[in-house]
């Protein structure tokens, strides 16, 4: 599979109002390229939702519904169930893929229950969580996805407390615990890896889950042209490893040739500036490095075990 083989269609049209250099724009465009015909999308309240549908404009060329923030899993379940019933009763001709889209706030935090319920009930749908590590839509507040030590407006880097004091929630483990057929992490910086995984979600016989790291120039305090580079660094430092869990089997899909120190990922980002200036907080950086190392080893062990 090569980039040239990807379809020309843009189910998310240009003219949307995401920030310049927004990781969500790239991620969603790439995700939609995995589809040969438009999926039915339900979208949680988020930057993506707000920026793509200011009335009377829509950037969506697919059927698209946005009911609220925390209910993407449940709405997708309803769409799937309706399709099943309507097809069975002869009122709808063919099956369309159901795609749930939600950010980290709408998934890690407020939407976790609806997601869990939908996964447990085994609805056939794809859920994509595009995470930019915080509530960017409301102005950069901490979420369960915010990495340790990151500055946000509700986990400020103060004189006493240096940014977020807790580790990021391991959402993948929670999702995988539902024993669904397919779950994977993706990054738009690795488009063919993303395509391959998305195509697997379409084939999955049951719920499939995708966690996509979506760099946010505004919230991460980074220049817009670095969006793809940061995604790459997240993978190369193993801060955000690319892997998939297919029917319980772990597989790391992108092993860095040389695992970079986390500092490479942290230093370019304004949200971690307080770790480097006025003086370098080596203690925190080392702590993050140790944590990443531990998680990375654990992931590799899981790959061997399963």
């Amino acid at each position, binding site marked *: 599979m090569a980039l040239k083989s990807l379809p020309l269609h843009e189910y998310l049209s240009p003219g949307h109002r995401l920030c310049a250099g927004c990781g969500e724009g790239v991620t969603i465009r790439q995700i939609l390229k995995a589809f040969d*015909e*438009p999926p*039915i999308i*339900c979208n949680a309240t988020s930057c993506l*939702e*707000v920026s793509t*549908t*200011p*009335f*009377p404009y*829509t950037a*969506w*060329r*697919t*059927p*698209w*519904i*946005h*009911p*609220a923030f*925390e*209910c993407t*899993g*449940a*709405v*997708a*379940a*309803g*769409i799937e*169930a*309706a*399709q*099943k*019933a*309507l097809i*069975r*009763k002869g*009122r*709808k001709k063919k099956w*369309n893929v159901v795609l749930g889209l939600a950010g980290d706030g709408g998934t890690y935090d407020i939407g976790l*229950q*609806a997601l*869990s*319920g*939908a996964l*447990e*009930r085994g609805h056939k749908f794809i859920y994509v969580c595009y995470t930019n590590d915080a509530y960017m839509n409301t102005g950069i507040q901490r979420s369960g996805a915010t990495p340790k030590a990151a500055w946000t407006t509700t986990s400020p880097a103060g004189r006493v407390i240096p940014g977020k004091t807790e580790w990021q929630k391991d959402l993948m483990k929670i999702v995988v615990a539902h024993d669904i057929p397919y779950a994977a992490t993706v990054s738009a910086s690795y488009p063919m890896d993303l395509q391959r995984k998305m195509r697997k979600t379409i084939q999955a016989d049951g719920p499939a889950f995708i966690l996509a790291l979506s760099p946010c120039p505004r919230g991460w305090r980074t220049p817009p042209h670095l969006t793809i580079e940061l995604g790459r660094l997240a993978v190369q430092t193993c801060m955000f490893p690319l892997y998939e869990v297919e029917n319980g089997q772990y597989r790391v899909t992108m092993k860095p040739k040389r695992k970079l120190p986390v500092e490479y990922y942290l230093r370019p980002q304004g949200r971690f500036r307080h770790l480097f200036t006025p003086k370098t907080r080596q203690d925190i950086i080392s702590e993050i490095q140790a944590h990443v190392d531990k998680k990375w080893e654990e992931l590799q062990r899981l790959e061997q075990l399963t």
Partner: protein
Amino acid sequence: MVAGMVLALNGDEAAAYAVKQCKPDVIAAYPITPQTIIVERLSEFVADGELDAEFISAESEHSALSACIGASAMGARTYTATASQGLALMYEMLFVASSFRLPIVMSVANRALNSPLNIWNDMSDTMGARDCGWIQIYNENAQEVYDFTIQAFRIAEDHGVLLPVMVCHDGFIVSHSTEGVETLSDSEVDSFLPPRDPVYPLDVERPVTIGCVGVPEYYPEIKYQQEVATKKSISKIKEIMNEFNEDFGRNYGIIEEYRMEDAEVAILTIGSASGTAKDAVDEMRTEGKPVGLLKLRLFRPLPVKDLRKALSDVKVVGVVDRHISFGALGGALNMEVRAALYEMKDRPHVMGFPTGLGGRDIRVEHFIKIADELLKIAERDMLEEDYRVVGCRGPGCIGP
């Protein structure tokens, strides 16, 4: 159960049986007392192959209604049921369903809200949800629950309405009371209720964006369009009720008058209390007291004109709410009836009587006390209190 017969059903079972005959495509619900019997029966119908529907056992009421929204947006006939805390948890999504103009039908077995925890009947739940843009129909008994559940789908899905409908019945008092219910045959229901014809379903052939950002430049226009549609639905609801009456020999209206012809004072009720109140009116009448009863069936949209007309000749109206709107004028029904009558030339006095809170039994005697109070007001031609709670011990209340 054989259709088209008189069946012994409690209110919940009457709802479930009617829903089965309406052939929904998707049911999404979460169990909560006193509604649970409905979803139990419906899941049995599905499990036994008597009802061809997808049954989603949601993990919360919020998700139950969210799933209904997704299903209804796809064009499916969609149903859910809840009560009390469950409705409160749905609150956010209630607005979404009505704003999307999705014809979801929901039964509510009315129940009080915490705290203290109370599983018994009052109307804190649906009265609290009165401004969510749903049509609200309140039923007196199992027969009405059955008849209006069927009509609710027809009303909701009518292209001149396209709004979600709450079909309310009092928890336990109706939900758990077995009565004889005259059912319709499946074919009678089929002829009254054609399959749903969705207007703008989620469709790959004709992609539609539902749930945009309503910027201030457009929000008022979108909302006023909804307001007009809601108000306009009254005439359509009347039309559909009349058709049902003609087809099946019933005699329903959006409001119903009982012994109002020469009444000087009127008790205004909603839900199951209406029946008990009728017995009280009869008792008062045998003593020669000019008391009448007005039963409100349709609370949303509020039939303002009908209320004005029905109450134009009485001196006093006693509005029996089944909940309290804290810090205001008793209950919501009282406030709305007062507001509706305010611009009438010779408007009657309107006094509120919140009662039956959290399952406190409402007896004939309570209504006689209320009616006596109303007659006193008529005599004085003056209202001393805006409302008084009935069925509560202590100063300022009318006893248990």
